[in-house]
């Protein structure tokens, strides 16, 4: 385990059963089962194109599943009305692979946007305090009036995470949080993911193919292979196996 914290194994915040998804003739997910418990950081590993992003987009209701069920905080995502889905999404924080900052808005406006859209009644000064507090949590308070294009990749990633924290989510979904970042910045992002877990008491799915990230952030590692969960367990358990697919992954990350 990455570090000591409370996991409630009686409470599933995400429960996925028999999830299938194809695009035309391209079969992407072929029967994925996955649970995330309250307070747990689950790392999903897999090669590019195995459908990791598709998996969390289905969880967030951005893509419909072909078959199978996805329950988030006890609600079946595919059966929710537009309004109920919107309410559920307020409890999800989604960190996109390319940060997806609103590039016509300043950092402050990026952070304010979800709050203004969802809680228009919040007064100006408490919103301002919340923005500052959240930027402080990701260590970028000094960038408050910059534009996204003026930031580095790692800073953009932090702002993307900060923006999702504005709504105090219960579940975080990170899509390749360290992809495209240098090792030092990656370590900082990994630390931030654990800090978010601690500070906001979230559960999380962390998608990655970076094993350092998996090792430092994951309480449990799930390996996707050919559209299914191929291996599952702690980092040590998964990589103790001499399965060639797993070993290739390990060698590439640590030995090369």
């Amino acid at each position, binding site marked *: 385990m990455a570090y000591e914290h409370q996991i409630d194994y009686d409470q599933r915040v995400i429960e996925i059963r028999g999830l299938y998804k194809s695009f035309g003739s391209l079969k992407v997910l072929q029967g994925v089962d996955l649970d995330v418990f309250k307070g747990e950081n689950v790392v999903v590993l897999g090669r590019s194109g195995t459908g990791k992003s598709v998996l969390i*987009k289905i969880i*967030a*209701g*951005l893509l419909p599943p072909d078959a199978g069920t996805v329950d988030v905080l006890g609600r079946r995502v595919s059966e929710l009305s537009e309004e109920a889905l*919107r*309410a559920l*999404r*307020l409890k*999800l924080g*989604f960190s*996109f*692979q*390319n940060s*997806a*900052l*609103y*590039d016509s808005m300043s950092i402050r406006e990026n952070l304010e*946007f*979800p709050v203004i*859209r*969802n809680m*228009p009644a919040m007064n100006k000064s408490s919103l301002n305090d919340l923005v500052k507090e959240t930027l402080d949590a990701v260590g970028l308070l000094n960038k408050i009036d910059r534009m996204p294009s003026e930031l580095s990749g790692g800073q953009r990633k932090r702002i*993307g995470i900060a*923006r*999702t924290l504005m*709504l105090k989510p219960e579940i975080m979904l990170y899509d390749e949080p360290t992809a495209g970042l240098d090792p030092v910045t990656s370590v900082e992002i990994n630390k931030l993911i654990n800090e978010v877990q601690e500070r906001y008491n979230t559960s999380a799915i962390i998608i990655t193919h970076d094993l350092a990230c998996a090792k430092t952030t994951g309480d449990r590692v799930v390996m996707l292979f050919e559209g299914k969960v191929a291996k599952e367990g702690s980092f040590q358990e998964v990589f103790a196996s001499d399965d060639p697919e797993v070993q290739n992954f390990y060698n590439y990350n640590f030995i090369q």
Partner: protein
Amino acid sequence: MDACFPRHRVLRFASILQQAGKFSIRISLANETTSKSGLGARWEELTLGLYDAVRFLGRLFRQAVSRPFDFQEIIRQCYEIGYRSLPLITLTGFVTGIVFTKQSRPSLVSFGATSWLPSLIAIAMIRALAPLVTALICAGKVGSNIGAELGSMKVTEQIDAMEVSGSRPFNFLIVTRVAASTLMIPVLAMYCAFVGLLGSFLNIYQNEKTSFVTFIADAFEQISFLDLGTSLTKAISFGFTIGAVACYKGFYASNGTQGVGKAANTAVVLSMFLIFMEELVIVQVSNWLR
């Protein structure tokens, strides 16, 4: 006959024709094998596109009348769409007025009827040119702008990011832009007619020394409420078309950066096509009412 068409030339011509014939048969045969899927795919694409478009319109109207209304963003978009198009509309409207006056004068001179110029120009400008010119200019400027902006927001997942934070991107991005464009194109068209008539007046004043009061009186003598109403109806539907088409193409853009260019491009082409179709229908209907 023989002299003009020597035998060998005729033969060569025939053989060229024959070759061409064979070639075209070969092409059509080659097409035959693929055409089923090609044509079928086209057909499928078209029907799917129509289905999507109808669903988009349904959603647009549903969201447009549901709370919350983003007045602030609508005003910002009005500024973007309306105010920023002013220089272009000023130039084109003014030039259209002058050029149309200059080109109409010779035919009227031959009847000794140059005093008809003001009313002729007013009819042409208000009934037809102002809404059409404004709409075509804005289809190019506003349409490509919206298409590219929303398209790049789509491919960089900014729209998904709004979606998953419960921020109602459809209301914030689409409804506001369509509303602003529907409001602003009529205003711009009126302004275009005004600037066009101004250009025309300056030219007429220079040549026929008509006073401003006479010009205005002559110009509006022939204009009925039906003309104004028809013109306004056109401008409103052109504005809606430009906004809705560009938003649709941008919001559903795909395939990386290529999708952005395609969204901007098809937004312009499709809205221009629809503008001409609407022009045809509205003019027809207004002529029935006349």
